[in-house]
């Protein structure tokens, strides 16, 4: 079997397929009756019932949130009761902060006071004029 499929061939094949399926279709009356049966058995949900269901869900969610919200502060106040006062955030220091400290920290963290140094030199007998002469 050889040959090419053109648009006409495809349309013809689809039409044959469509006709075959249409012959096999179940009767409308049977499908409709089954659907109607199921519709009458199925309890109808009125709009007010949907609203009531939504309101119940909202109320339960709000109740849950409130309960949780009330419980949360109790959990945080347990620490002071146990004798460990919670430090203020501004004064808190890391437990490993000491690892960053070294002997030369003073040089980098403090500023020298120039007037004091000048006074110290003066006390040692070193004068500005004497230095210039030298």
């Amino acid at each position: 079997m050889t040959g090419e499929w053109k648009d006409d061939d495809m349309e013809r094949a689809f039409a044959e397929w469509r006709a075959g399926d249409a012959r096999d279709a179940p009767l409308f009356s049977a499908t409709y009756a089954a659907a109607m049966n199921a519709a009458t058995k199925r309890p109808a949900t009125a709009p007010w019932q949907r609203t009531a269901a939504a309101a119940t869900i909202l109320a339960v969610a709000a109740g849950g949130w409130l309960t949780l919200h009330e419980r949360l502060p109790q959990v945080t106040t347990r620490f002071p009761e146990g004798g460990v006062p919670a430090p203020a955030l501004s004064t808190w220091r890391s437990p490993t902060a000491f690892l960053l400290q070294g002997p030369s920290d003073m040089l980098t963290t403090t500023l020298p006071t120039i007037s004091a140094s000048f006074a110290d030199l003066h006390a040692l007998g070193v004068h500005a004029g004497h230095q210039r002469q030298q």
Partner: protein
Amino acid sequence: MEHAELRLQLETCHGQSYSWALHCCERDRVEAEDVLQAAYLKVLDGRARFDGRSSFATWLFAVIRRTAADERRRRMLRFARHAPLRDDLPLGGERAGAVELSESAERRAILEAALDALPRRQREVLLLVMYHERTVEEAAAVIGIGVGSARTHYARGKQRLRELLQHSELRHDR
């Protein structure tokens, strides 16, 4: 829409609706009938309402497609929960007695096999346009995609379908 009018519209579209349900259920007749019945139920009890934005058939096709997808998901969940693993189930694609098919049945079998090889979106658009004789715009509305996207799927799908048909092992002669 009045109940009598609704019934008349459903009856008018029944043949096409069944064919579309068949395509949405991978040609499983029992499942297609269940899906069609479930879709009618949705229409009758008001869970699906026709708002007149498209033709009745286009809207009904969209309802059937969604119902089939829901049904498929439900079955998969049920299968995952209860079904034992079986190795003796036949793999898809093999059709019994294909050799003895008549010429038109053979053409149909080739066409079905070629369509099965297409990506799902392309297959859906092609079936809606070429089998159900919907416009590309209507096909887009049924699937829930943009018209431009549907046009692309249609053009690529048709091109690919033609290639697959020409390279199929069982070619038809005239």
